[in-house]
């Protein structure tokens, strides 16, 4: 194929066109590579290479001075990782606190946004109602706006004398100081039943340096406001996915159910819901993947405070590297997070490949809604 390399894209084909069908495609090998080169270069330089470099840094004690690739940087092997999991200390405590916070965050955000998205899609898909287009747009609008700008608005809404507390006041309730309250919601709930001091069995020990009582705190009051914000921004996107799926549900099936005397609930439960199963899997796994990446909102609204109850692994990795200048530990944290998300992604791909069969390609490129 030596002659191929002579023809550059954009120039006329070298020599008269050949008769063979391959002739027309003769310079495509070069053109193809030239066409993809910029993208490959950028993605390689800023996606692939960084991962390898960070993997190296996570094995060092680099403090941000000079280059991490010289002999001066102490090589510490797996120390950064073992400090996160096995060694008792602040690093493990913070990391495990972040993991705990994120688990509660995921545990609330994913189910609520999925159910809300489905509910909104069902209402908006109802053919008896007019003006649905407007409401679809209204529900989706928060998803396209800047996460930082929205966080500013929610800071105001959840301020001590803010709109949310005013609203609660109208209902006769005293709102908390949202962003100063680090108490866990489950602890508060137990407190309402008179359990104020934890049983000794729960405070005496627990896995990974946190006591059982700490693990069982629930999301903090501060975290709850971030949870509200995220559910509010992401359910619109997922609503659209459900809506697209609902519009593919054949009307005939629903009508057949109706003829068989099935109630509205039965038709939803036994006809519509099973047909929406692939979409539900998609929404749940995308939600899981997105929820482990929460960063912007934490950065703007709470910076991990109060009492580290809004700390998440993504934010902790940023803070460890760029505030404490412990790039090795920061990179190690982001690798653990990477692993969590990759497992979830592979799980999603596998599910989609199984469930969606020939249409698989369409689902490959689901982007995770920003900041979810």
């Amino acid at each position, binding site marked *: 194929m030596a002659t191929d390399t002579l023809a550059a894209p954009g120039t006329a084909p070298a020599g008269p066109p050949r008769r063979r069908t391959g002739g027309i495609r003769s310079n495509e090998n070069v*053109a193809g590579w030239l066409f993809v080169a910029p993208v490959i270069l*950028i993605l390689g330089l800023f996606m692939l290479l960084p991962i390898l470099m960070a993997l190296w840094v996570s094995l060092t004690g680099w403090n941000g001075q000079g280059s991490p690739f010289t002999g001066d940087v102490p090589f510490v092997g797996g120390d950064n990782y073992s400090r996160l999991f096995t060694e008792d200390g602040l690093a493990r405590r913070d990391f495990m606190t972040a993991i705990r916070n994120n688990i509660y965050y995921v545990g609330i955000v994913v189910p609520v946004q999925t159910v809300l998205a489905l509910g909104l899609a069902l209402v908006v898909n109802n053919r008896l109602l007019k003006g649905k287009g407007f409401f679809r747009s209204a529900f989706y609008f928060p998803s396209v706006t800047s996460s930082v700008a929205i966080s500013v608005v929610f800071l105001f809404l959840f301020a001590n004398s803010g709109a949310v507390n005013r609203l609660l006041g109208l209902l006769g309730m005293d709102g908390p100081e949202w962003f100063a309250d680090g108490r866990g919601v489950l602890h508060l709930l137990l407190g309402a039943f008179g359990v104020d001091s934890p049983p000794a069995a729960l405070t005496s020990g627990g896995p990974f340096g946190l006591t059982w009582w700490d693990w069982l705190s629930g999301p903090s009051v501060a975290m709850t406001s971030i949870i509200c914000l995220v559910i509010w921004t992401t359910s619109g996107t997922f609503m659209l996915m459900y809506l697209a799926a609902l519009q593919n549900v054949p009307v005939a099936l629903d009508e057949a159910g109706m003829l068989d005397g099935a109630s509205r609930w039965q038709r939803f439960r036994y006809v519509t819901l099973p047909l929406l199963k692939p979409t539900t899997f998609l929404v749940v796994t995308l939600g899981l993947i997105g929820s482990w990446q929460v960063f912007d909102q934490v950065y703007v609204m709470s910076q991990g405070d109060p009492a580290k109850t809004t700390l998440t692994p*993504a934010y902790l990795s940023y803070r460890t590297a760029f505030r404490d200048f412990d790039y090795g530990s920061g990179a190690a944290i982001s690798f653990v997070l990477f692993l969590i998300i990759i497992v979830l992604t592979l799980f999603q791909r596998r599910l989609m490949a199984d469930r969606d069969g020939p249409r698989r390609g369409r689902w490959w490129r689901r982007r995770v809604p920003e900041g979810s």
Partner: protein
Amino acid sequence: MAVLTDRPAPVARRADRGPRARVNRFLGYGVLIFFGLVFLYPFVIQLANSLKTEPDAAANPLSPVPDPLTLAGFERIFAGTAFPLWLGNSLLVTVVVTLGRVFLDSLAGYALARLRFRGRAGLFAAVIAVMAVPGVVLLIPKFLVLKQIGLYDSYAGLIVPLLADAAGVFIMKQFFESIPVSMEEAARIDGAGVFRTFWSVVLPMARPALITLTILSFQGSWNEFPHSLVSVQDPDLFTLPRGLADLVSGSLGKGTQYPLKLGAALLATIPVAVLFVIFQRYFVRGANEGADKG
């Protein structure tokens, strides 16, 4: 403002009328209006409070009517903060990133869809794999690369890493595959080179996909926050989200100046909001993998 076209409604059956249906419809509208308020009222509050005085915003945060109405918050945004600078930086980054992405993603998408070259299948698999890389874990790595190649703290550092995105390549590839080959073959037989065929024949036919990609790139780069956090440090290079975050958490302290902060956030939202109102269906296509409409 219709987002998705409805199926043609079947002929109204008896079940659509009668008292039960009326109750259902009533409930339906109730739900719609309730959630409509939940999703839109925060924006109303934002607008209203950005036009209030500080004591008024603190005393009546829920009220949609500023009393008295004042532009003081906005005046302070332009006079007392670096807002104009952030706006300029955001515009520059967004325009360059959008143009670059649309062009580079189309090139790569076209090659992956149409050109037969060795390694194509492998490259496509790599693009798919890249889409799975979570952005948040790349914060430290990106910083490392930018530092190493000397782009840290520069416009190039803000822009270049965003110039290509795998998802855009995927959208364009899907679209190009849906265009009939015959047009290109005619052009090729007439003696047009590969780039010429791409530029003058195929690209004009890809208008819907190009608009989708333009809108998504604009929205994405306008709202981009974490990347600006790790690629620059110099306040002269802050983009709007970065400046806004700084405004909230840093220079002005917490808990005060709400009209100013809400106003700045509002101004940062307006461009995307305007685009959304005009080009909604392209946003929806982005959320719903529009390739199926081709």
